[in-house]
């Protein structure tokens, strides 16, 4: 039974507390004497602060203090650090003060903050802070900001270019000279707002007597938060405890260390009482990071038979007004290195310009860099197929990397771990009934109806990653994970892990691993995460690394437990340790299964320690650190089927087929859930979502009324299947699954719409593909 629990879709142990409302999110935390913080934010995209008058606000009912950036600075609270500076990229890191002092650089930039007894008192007083601004010229577009005479955001950053980075493999210029056909596109991978359903929040509790600070935070990575907070607040790391209680989704937006952490800690320190800050949704849209926002010029070179010989691109990546925690790594390492996709592209060159603009900082949003790479490659493949009048499946097959189990190096320098791309594609085509769909398409076209079939065959880089590589690519931290497994005398188990899930279900997944490996009941295992005081160091949950890296640490600890249990069993049964075998929760003498000890027996004997062999320490507890030797590269094939109404531009999403391969599947129900959610977000980008700024830097899509978070009725039922190609990068052979759906679905859907409209001669339409845009594109093509 124990061995079957791995791979079983058991129900999540997280859910009872969540479906009953008993779960505690950050805003649910209530502490004695707690007071509330509210932030005053700039209504201007770019302006000089002339004066901040706090007198009226300070005199309002319940107000305990009104604070400015200058006060934070004087108290030793430094700029928000950027934790990823890509080497060889001349990155400029202008200071990011948690609260603006002289100049505001985006709407939503904090200029002051207020603390009061009541939530609404704090809000009222924040509204009463009188700030005089001198508006400055604004630029919001990542390309325009680099042009002559564009408004300049930071001293020492000419033309707003934060960095120029490039990736080169092979000889791309020679490839383009030899090419028989070249296709080009200008792609706008639009800015998105992550929209975790729980906005951000913080509760800071400073104890003056001990100098200790506890921060309840909506973070995906409490240990990183503690490290960064120690750097910019000056509070020593051992005095900081960060707790990520229940966290209501993140999608990357809760990775960064944010200014409000510093403000709440400062206020708690000054007032010596707990301070709570809860972001409103409209505030979230301005003050929490955005994602994507690339402008891409792309060329693909090929021969007439469809063989690709080179890919060349130039990208302007809009970074927003300041560098958020991981922002420079997203459009470089996580984007540029993935431009080979699942194809043999021998020559690749990409220039990436990271650009400052008067917009909310941009950082990791689900997929982070890989959606921008995959969309580019998959779009170009389809444009090539169209140009050569070939089936897009044929072009993909012509260039696809054949199945491999021992690594495959692509031109950008990465070595993919394992892959069987054709396997996933074949399965998806079969599920879709591809040939039949093409026939149906031809019949419908004859009747003036537009059916489109879109493909995306992808691989992505995740399970971040080897720490040595992290260091080499400029990431300011490690990327290993750790776990502690502790057996109690009763045979029950506590596991403490460094990762910090926030919806991904690893409490269940990890309990399944423990139960499977040691034969304990799954309900006998408790998994603890998200508290720097209770859990060992870990680098957090993002980049689809929770299970891919975290399970490696857990497996390491379980192996140590098993080894110790064998030693103790051998001693108790007076056998040689080499003669002890393990199966289904029992340690037994080879050939005599009757002579055995259960893991519970061993746990008791180890804990009471009445009869330990010489040299063996009491207790049954193990700690392990796992640093993977490589990233993992999940892959798959997605197919979207759409109908487009040529009269209205309306797109009807008929079917969506997803075949994904994340290596070993531990809980198929949870894996499917991750894929569903990912697909919905990726389709959201293709069809509905987009952050829109006007030329003055006002966020027009500034509330949930204006930004289209998809609803249930927008989607058909997704058709899913898995293939299972194990990786050798970690003990269980698992790859990440958190981001694949988002990476694959945007290009699959876009390609379907482009395919539907091909007979009408429609060229590029910018996402989101709203009916208006599609209708205009059709009208333009017809005229």
């Amino acid at each position, binding site marked *: 039974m124990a061995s079957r629990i791995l791979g079983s879709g058991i129900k999540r142990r997280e*859910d009872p507390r969540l*479906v*009953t409302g008993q779960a505690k999110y950050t805003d*649910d935390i209530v502490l004695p004497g707690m007071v509330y913080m509210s932030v005053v934010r700039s209504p201007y995209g770019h302006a000089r602060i002339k004066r901040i008058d706090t007198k009226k606000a300070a005199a309002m009912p319940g107000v305990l203090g009104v604070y400015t950036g200058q006060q934070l600075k004087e108290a030793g609270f430094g700029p928000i650090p950027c934790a990823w500076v890509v080497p060889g990229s001349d990155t400029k890191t202008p200071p990011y003060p948690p609260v603006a002092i002289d100049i505001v650089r985006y709407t939503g930039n904090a200029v002051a903050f207020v603390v009061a007894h009541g*939530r609404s008192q704090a809000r009222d007083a924040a509204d009463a802070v009188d700030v005089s601004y001198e508006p400055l010229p604004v630029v919001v577009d990542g390309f325009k900001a680099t042009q002559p005479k564009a408004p300049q955001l930071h001293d020492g950053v000419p033309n707003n270019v934060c960095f120029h980075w490039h990736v080169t493999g092979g000889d791309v210029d020679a490839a383009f000279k030899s090419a028989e056909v070249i296709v080009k596109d200008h792609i706008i991978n639009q800015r998105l707002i992550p929209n975790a359903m729980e906005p951000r929040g913080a509760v800071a509790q400073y104890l003056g007597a001990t100098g200790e600070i506890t921060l309840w935070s909506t973070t995906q990575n409490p240990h990183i938060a503690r490290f960064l907070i120690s750097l910019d607040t000056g509070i020593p790391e051992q005095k900081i405890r960060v707790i990520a209680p229940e966290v209501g989704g993140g999608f990357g937006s809760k990775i960064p260390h944010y200014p409000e952490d510093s403000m709440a800690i400062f206020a708690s320190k000054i007032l010596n009482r707990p301070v709570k800050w809860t972001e409103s949704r409209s505030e979230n849209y301005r003050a929490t990071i955005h994602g994507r926002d690339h402008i891409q010029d792309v060329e693909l070179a090929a021969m007439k038979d469809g063989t690709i010989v080179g890919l060349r691109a130039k990208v302007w990546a809009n970074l927003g007004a300041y560098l958020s925690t991981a922002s420079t790594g997203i459009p470089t390492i996580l984007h540029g290195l993935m431009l080979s996709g699942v194809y043999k592209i021998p020559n690749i060159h990409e220039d990436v310009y990271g650009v400052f603009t008067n917009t909310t900082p941009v950082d990791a949003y689900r997929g982070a860099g890989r959606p921008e790479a995959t969309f580019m490659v998959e779009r170009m493949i389809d444009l090539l197929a169209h140009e050569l009048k070939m089936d897009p499946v044929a072009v993909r097959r012509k260039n696809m990397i054949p199945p491999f189990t021992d690594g495959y190096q692509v031109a950008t320098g990465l070595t993919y771990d394992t892959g069987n791309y054709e396997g996933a594609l074949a399965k998806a085509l079969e599920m879709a009934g591809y040939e039949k769909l093409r026939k149906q398409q031809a019949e419908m076209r004859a009747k003036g109806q537009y059916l489109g079939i879109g493909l995306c065959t992808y691989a992505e880089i995740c399970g971040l990653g080897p720490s040595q590589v992290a260091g080499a690519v400029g990431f300011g931290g490690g990327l290993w994970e750790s776990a502690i497994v502790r057996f109690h005398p009763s045979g029950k188990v506590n596991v403490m892990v460094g990762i910090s899930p926030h919806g991904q279900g690893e409490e269940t997944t990890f309990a399944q691993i423990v139960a499977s490996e040691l034969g304990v009941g799954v309900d006998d295992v408790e998994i603890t995460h998200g508290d720097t005081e209770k859990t060992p160091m870990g680098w957090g949950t993002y980049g689809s690394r929770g299970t891919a890296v975290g399970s490696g640490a857990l497996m390491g600890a379980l192996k140590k437990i098993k080894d110790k249990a064998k030693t103790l069993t051998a001693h108790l049964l007076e056998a040689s340790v080499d003669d002890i075998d393990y199966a289904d929760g029992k340690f037994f003498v080879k050939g005599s299964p009757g002579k055995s000890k259960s893991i519970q027996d061993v746990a008791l004997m180890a804990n009471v320690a009445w009869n330990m062999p010489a040299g063996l320490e009491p207790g049954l507890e193990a700690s392990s650190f796992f640093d993977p030797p490589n990233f993992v590269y999940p892959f798959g094939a997605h197919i979207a089927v759409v109908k487009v109404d040529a009269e209205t531009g309306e797109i009807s999403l008929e079917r969506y087929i997803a075949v994904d391969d994340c290596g070993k599947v531990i809980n198929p129900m949870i894996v499917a*859930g991750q894929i569903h959610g990912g697909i*919905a*977000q990726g389709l959201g980008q293709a069809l509905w979502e987009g952050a829109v700024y006007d030329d003055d830097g006002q966020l027009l899509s500034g509330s949930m009324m204006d930004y289209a978070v998809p609803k*249930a009725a927008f989607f058909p*039922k997704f058709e899913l299947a898995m293939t299972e190609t194990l990786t050798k990068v970690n003990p269980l052979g698992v790859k990440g699954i958190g981001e694949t759906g988002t990476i694959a679905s945007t290009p699959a859907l876009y390609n379907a719409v482009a395919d539907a409209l091909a007979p009408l001669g429609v060229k590029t339409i910018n996402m989101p593909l709203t009916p208006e845009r599609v209708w205009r594109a059709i009208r333009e093509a017809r005229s």
Partner: protein
Amino acid sequence: MKHPVSVTVNGAKQVADVEPRLLLVHFLRDTLGLTGTNVGCDTSQCGACTVFIDGQAVKSCTVLAVQADGAKVTTIEGLATNGKLHVVQQAFWDKHGLQCGFCTPGMIMTACDLLQRNPDPSEEDVRHGIEGSLCRCTGYQNIVAAVREAASQMKA
């Protein structure tokens, strides 16, 4: 100037003096400490704060506490009886209808309301019926499955 209100919440009468501008959701969360009902937006789009008022699902951010004076309110905390999950809660658990769980209390209340009005909803009925509640994690597929599962359990 505070106003007295008397609201029956999950079967218990609650009396308090509240500011006229206090939203019902903040009354539930901050005054009564019933934090199961969440706040996900400030424009009444997300539905995370959905509760029952006099038997109907209502977004509690669209109602002032003073407007709920005399009403019977049921929140997610009041759904289970004697420690046994409500059939909709159970179905959300069984069908993996949640991930981060933040939208879940509101989504469950919305689903209860839908099933009251339409005990045998089709897939499409459910997708339209829960449109007032947003979820960013699940892509809704398993939420739809959970609501339909609850419907079939209720019939059984």
